[in-house]
């Protein structure tokens, strides 16, 4: 990095990775102990993986480390000195920062603006010309690029996540916490980002704490790994020496991860979903959808692989009735489909987009209300004018029970639930009743190992019961694991199709980036 030429960096010391040790850190919320006497050492210039289920205390731990929470007991020793980290500014002064799982960029501002504004020493009047020049110099050294002059809100999830990582690097952090950094990335991007992180670490520039559920990433990129379970330290060691079985056992306290459910029976002949010559208008000069033919049959999972932002969102919106196609047909069981409520009920169509809290729930309404979004106006006995409050409550309690949704009260607003539980709640709702066609997008985004296995098993079970499933996922492993047939989307078009079993990941990856 051209530090001498670069005023952003030149007032800071030649940076060196940090070393941090946590000693007996405890954090309580009321009577609930979120973090119980956790000690661990993050060695200088290493990638330290933090593993654990949702609610295991990983987030609480890093929030204590970064000053968002004040730990009740215990100390952090940074660079051999006891550090008082009472607020985020303290962590910032020590050179520690975090990339969140939830995006923290200002959606209406461009990536350049977001980066510049995130600095703590932004001058009152910004010389954009100079800032741009510096940014350009900075970006030259980056092994990946994002569109810098488009409002961040218009970027796809993957691009936004990359911008977040870029921001931390731009802020010259010496210890970076990455909270599930690759959950939105393609294998190539993930390898690229983690490879970049790895190389920066090896240069001695940064120490990285990575919160992840992907054991493969731990094996490939981490030096050390610490496992938390229910707020307690469950084990640690060298990432090279601990195998997936041992790690899984530490995480869930059981020797084996749940077995994946097998796909049984072949696809039926019927064309449950048939998309023909579908086109949509692209927004703001971006490409729209252009799908000549896409068919999903009963007892079949068609996985749509692709880099995020290649039209998957548009396709889900068209199928969900949120976007009108410019031309072409969407047929469900032979009948034209537009996404109306009666149509969806009659044809058994369920669409579940990614980020269910944002896209498929009403955050302020209760868990009970949210679980009844499909059925409040039409139950087993037909259309309803008056709400059946008792029936709704019972239906929701049944779902809470059978899907193991953890909620403080059925009346609590669904926004109070954790990500995994929101996903369970929406899945319970969408799987309720006769489902003939399921369109599901990134179903496991941000879920822990156990929840992922459970969600995938439910999707496969639905398929085995005769549902046609269109699965859109940015996680290629997921697509490969679940799909009977895989199609690849690139720039709004289906560019490649291959049978699921025995598909070649690298070949698919090449089509994903448009080099078929």
């Amino acid at each position, binding site marked *: 990095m051209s530090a001498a030429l670069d005023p952003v960096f030149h007032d800071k010391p030649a940076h060196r990775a940090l070393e941090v040790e946590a000693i007996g850190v405890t954090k309580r919320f009321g009577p609930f102990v979120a973090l119980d006497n956790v000690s661990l050492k993050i060695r200088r210039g290493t990638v330290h993986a933090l593993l654990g289920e949702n609610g295991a205390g990983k987030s609480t731990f890093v929030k204590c480390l970064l000053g968002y929470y004040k730990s009740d007991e215990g100390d952090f020793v940074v660079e051999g000195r006891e550090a008082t980290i009472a607020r985020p500014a303290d962590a910032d002064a020590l050179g520690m920062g975090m990339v969140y799982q939830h995006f923290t960029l200002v959606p209406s501002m461009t990536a350049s603006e977001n980066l510049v504004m995130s600095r703590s020493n932004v001058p009152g009047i910004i010389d954009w010309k100079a800032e741009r020049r510096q940014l350009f110099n900075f970006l030259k050294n980056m092994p990946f690029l994002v569109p810098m002059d488009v409002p961040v809100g218009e970027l796809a999830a993957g691009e936004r996540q990359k911008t977040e990582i870029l921001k931390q690097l731009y802020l010259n952090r010496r210890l970076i916490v990455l909270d599930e950094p690759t959950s939105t990335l393609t294998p190539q991007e993930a390898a690229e980002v983690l490879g970049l992180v790895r190389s920066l670490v090896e240069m001695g520039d940064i120490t990285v704490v990575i919160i992840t559920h992907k054991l493969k990433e731990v094996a490939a990129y981490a030096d050390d790994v610490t496992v938390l379970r229910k707020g307690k330290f469950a084990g640690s060691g060298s990432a090279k020496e601990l195998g997936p079985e041992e790690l899984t056992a530490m995480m869930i306290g059981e020797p084996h991860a749940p077995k994946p459910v097998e796909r049984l029976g072949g696809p039926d002949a019927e064309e449950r979903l048939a998309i023909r010559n579908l086109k949509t208008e692209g927004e703001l000069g971006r490409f729209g959808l252009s799908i000549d033919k896409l068919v999903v049959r009963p007892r079949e999972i068609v996985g749509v692989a692709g880099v995020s932002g290649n039209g998957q969102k548009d396709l889900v919106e068209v199928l969900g009735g949120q976007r009108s196609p410019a031309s072409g047909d969407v047929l469900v069981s032979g009948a034209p489909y537009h996404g109306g409520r009666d149509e969806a009920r009659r044809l058994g169509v369920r669409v579940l987009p990614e980020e269910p809290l944002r896209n498929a729930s009403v*955050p302020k309404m209760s868990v009970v209300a949210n679980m009844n979004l499909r059925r409040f106006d039409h139950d087993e006995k037909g259309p309803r004018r008056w709400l059946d409050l008792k029936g709704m409550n019972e239906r929701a309690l049944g779902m809470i029970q059978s899907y193991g949704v953890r909620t403080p009260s059925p009346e609590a607003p669904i926004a109070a639930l954790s990500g995994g539980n929101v996903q369970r709640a929406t899945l319970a709702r969408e799987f309720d009743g006769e489902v003939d066609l399921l369109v599901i997008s990134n179903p496991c985004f941000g879920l822990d190992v156990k929840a992922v296995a459970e969600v995938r098993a439910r999707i496969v079970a639905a398929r085995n019961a005769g549902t046609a499933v269109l699965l859109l996922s940015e996680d290629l492993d997921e697509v490969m694991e679940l799909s009977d047939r895989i199609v690849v989307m690139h720039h709004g078009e289906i560019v490649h199709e291959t049978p699921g079993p025995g598909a070649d990941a690298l070949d698919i990856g090449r089509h994903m980036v448009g080099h078929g």
Partner: protein
Amino acid sequence: MTIAMSSEAASKATAQPKQPAGDWGYPFRRLLEQLLVPVAALLIAATGFAIFLVFLGTSPLDFASLVWRGAFGSWFSFQNTLQRAAPLLLTALCVALPAQLGLVVIGGEGAVVLGGLAAAVIGASLSALFPPLVILAMAVSGALVGAFWIGLTGWLRAYRGINETIASLLLAYIALAVFNHLVEGPLRDPASLNKPSTLPIGEANMLGSLPGMNIHPGLVLGLVACIGFWIVIQRTSFGFAWRVTGGNLRTALLQGLPANRLIVIACALGGACAGLAGMIEVAAVHGSANASLAAGYGYAGILIAFLARQSPLGAIPMAILLGGISAAGGLVQRRLGLPDATVLVLQGFIFVSILASETIYGRFRWFQPRGTA
């Protein structure tokens, strides 16, 4: 872990739902929060206003006792309060109903004057008919015109993406201009000299008072409308669809709810209420449409709806509170020698305090759901 995979297993689990251990006190605490926060806000507003009065050299206690006497202290003053609250109940619904879908509609005044005008014109032209029929025709025409006017705002919002707040406000100005033009021009009663008015609807067609009281039946209509719409919102699938649409538009569309149509309908129903308020002012108070109709009921309705946090039920006490404050205005003016606008200052304190209290909801852990999340 258990994965209830087979449909039999799932239905078995559904068949005997056990109540999961959880926080069963939460709904009660939520209700308590919804009551305590506005009460606290009102106390703070009263304190602020008391300090203001001390600066004016007036005793806050004298003021409070006068307001009490002027608004609620006697049956006579309470009737005055209720009389003033009646149109406010209806205009508050013009804000509260679209608010269920996340819309901020502030142009109720337009629907009030046009609804009142339509009612006056219909009433005057049918005045020879059987009075109840005339009143019904007036009510229907007032409601329809109001529904059209605010429905137009909803249509612009739903199908043309135009901000409903600005659209409704500007449409209210247009409505006032049209109203003035018609009342002072083509529809003017030549006999109305100092105060241009439309032709009178006739004494026989006026709404009388409720039996044994000096209150017009508009109060009953307002109360019925508030309670009725509260039931619609809380207990019908139609109202549930409104709440879903207001809570998350994407989700509503995904669930196939006709969100755009719901927006237009909610706005039209709100407008119908405001139009009815105008009709009642004509049929119960003025006897014709004139400038007195534009007395700011539409704007006061915004205040009440926000004070009531957009709950039709909450609008009832808030309308009575504000009706009372304005009923006491005259007494305060005479006895304490304070200007008429003093009660507006009090309203302002209340409004700001209640709006600021919005940010308090969810801040106190005690009210929140507990346990696993």
